């Protein structure tokens, strides 16, 4: 848009005002904001109300999906002494899935109306897809964990126990894994399909990023449980570590591609408290520290190696939660920044007028 010439602002309150116009919230110098896009620095879009309930749902749902997939894969290709990976994966998946619907319902403005989600299936609404996907996956996860519990003799010899023993554990796993992967990754798509600059700018990478983080968290949780169990064969632990380290590398690669691709839109990820959580939690605790610990553990033996591995797993698990936290929080910050919104939606030919810096 080269024509409507007058690049002006509604005033010289370039930034730092919330949508009700209440005072500045800090923010960068406003010299360059005197002539800049926007209207008194008031947000150009509305951010969602999502906070901790949703952050924890993203985290637990991811672990539930990825743990289920890992269990299925371990059953399919793992060595016979690795059976416990599948077993732990199924229990873990179900345990992580249990809080998910509760978190989702509690987050609704009107929790008592949650069932209205099941009126429709809308293929272009990730939240609608997710509702149905999570429900269907819940069925698979419950059946799989019942079958596992029956095999483990936990359901007794009664009617239920005998029925559950007949469940085809492997076939269930194969059929449920696509849904499990969907549950682990669709949350990134859900955020990407909004007007929030930080979520939608690199829309193609947010789903893969959440998926990668789900895998690294789930593998670490399994590693942690395995490390705490006596008598796990060293070979099993070794293969799990191999998987954990390679997922961390994949997660790091996707994170770097996403972060760099955001350009100035990604600024909230580098600033203030959120920036510290990104550096110390997501990158430091979630990726770098575990890789270093695993490297050291690989050249040590015995109890010390096991301690390193436990610390590494806990660190990855914390990093996974930190990732969901910063994506949600930094997204909300970017939604409140009219320069980010209006800069991203500028018409051709106007980038200098609307540069986000």
């Amino acid at each position, binding site marked *: 848009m080269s024509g409507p010439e007058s690049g002006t602002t509604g005033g010289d309150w370039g930034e730092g005002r919330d949508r009700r116009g209440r005072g500045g919230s800090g923010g960068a110098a406003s010299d360059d904001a005197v002539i800049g896009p926007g209207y008194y620095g008031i947000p150009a879009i509305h*951010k969602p109300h999502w906070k901790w309930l949703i952050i924890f749902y993203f985290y637990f749902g991811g672990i539930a999906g990825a743990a289920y997939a890992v269990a299925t894969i371990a059953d399919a290709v793992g060595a016979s002494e690795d059976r416990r990976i599948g077993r732990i994966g199924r229990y873990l998946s179900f345990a992580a899935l249990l809080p998910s619907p509760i978190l989702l319902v509690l987050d609704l*403005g009107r929790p008592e109306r949650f069932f209205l*989600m099941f009126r429709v299936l809308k293929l272009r609404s990730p939240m609608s897809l997710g509702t149905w996907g999570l429900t269907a996956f819940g069925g698979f996860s419950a059946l799989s964990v019942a079958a596992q519990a029956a095999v483990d003799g936990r359901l007794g010899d009664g009617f239920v126990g005998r029925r559950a023993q007949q469940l085809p554990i492997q076939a269930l796993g194969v059929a449920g894994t696509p849904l499990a992967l969907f549950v682990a990754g669709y949350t990134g798509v859900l955020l990407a399909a909004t007007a929030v600059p930080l979520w939608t700018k690199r829309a193609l990478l947010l789903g893969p990023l959440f998926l990668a983080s789900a895998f690294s968290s789930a593998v670490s949780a399994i590693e942690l449980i395995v490390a705490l169990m006596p008598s796990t064969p060293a070979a099993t632990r070794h293969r799990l570590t191999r998987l954990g380290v390679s997922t961390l590398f994949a997660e790091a690669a996707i994170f770097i591609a996403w972060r760099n691709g955001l350009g100035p839109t990604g600024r909230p990820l580098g600033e203030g408290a959120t920036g510290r959580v990104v550096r110390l939690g997501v990158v430091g605790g979630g990726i770098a520290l575990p890789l270093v610990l695993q490297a050291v553990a690989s050249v040590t033996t015995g109890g010390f190696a096991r301690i390193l591995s436990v610390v590494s797993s806990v660190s990855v698990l914390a990093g996974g939660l930190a990732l969901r936290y910063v994506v949600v929080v930094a997204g909300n910050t970017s939604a409140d920044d009219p320069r980010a919104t209006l800069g991203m939606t500028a018409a051709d030919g106007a980038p200098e007028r609307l540069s986000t810096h």
Partner: protein
Amino acid sequence: MTLSTSDRSPLTGTTGARAGALGFLTDVSLCIGCKACEVACKQWNQLPADSGTGITGLTGFSYDNTVDLGATTWRHVAFVEQAATTVDRTWEAPGAPGSPTAWLMLSDVCKHCVHAGCLEACPTGAIVRTEFDTVVIQQDVCNGCGYCVPACPFGVPQLGDTDRKAHKCTLCYDRLVDGLEPACAKACPTESIRFGPIAELLPRALDRVEQLQERGVAGAHLYGDRAIGGTGGMEGLNALFVLTAPPEVFNLPAAPELPQRKVLPALVSTAIAAVAFILGSGAALRGRR
């Protein structure tokens, strides 16, 4: 004076509005900032007053004490001050006290997008398209999930503080079914807000833009066609605007996108990543059986 790109675009003056679509045309050059539309909207729709900010309820930075659209504010009059700098009517931010100042007033509203982000996002089907091609939230269906809120590229819907359901302009659906025009358009004393079929409003808007440009308002342009405002898969807006400054001056995005355009590509990229993770995990976990 140059015409805007939008005026040269083949998409200018086109929208995907369905036959018989009704909507608004809001003209910034006619608005006197009286806020009659805000008041009429609140009265007809029984919306509570905004508490404003501070003890006074005044923002203290402009005559705009409404600030934004929200759950209980479905019309919002923006007040923009500009200082004259040159004779060719290029305006910028307010100059020194006493220098000539121009006022821009614009009554913002839900755009009733031809393809609406809020509607497509809504997982309960609470948001529907009416027989008038407008977009309405059914209050007996909404469960307050809040997904429509960030899915609107214009920052329109919001959850109510008290009932925790999403609210926005209904284009006075309850008046339309009785053959009445929306309360805001009825109340507007200058016809800055016009209501009618898009098929009539669109040519009227283009005529008005031409007229303004002939009078020397170089920046006059239409907002809400496929070229500006109704871009990125939205195929136009059923609330059109005649603006005399870039849309960003009023906090309106120049080239927004329908968020749901990202859904299929993002699902595909996530599926590809999922296959990669399956293969990678298989390779890492492989062992002698």
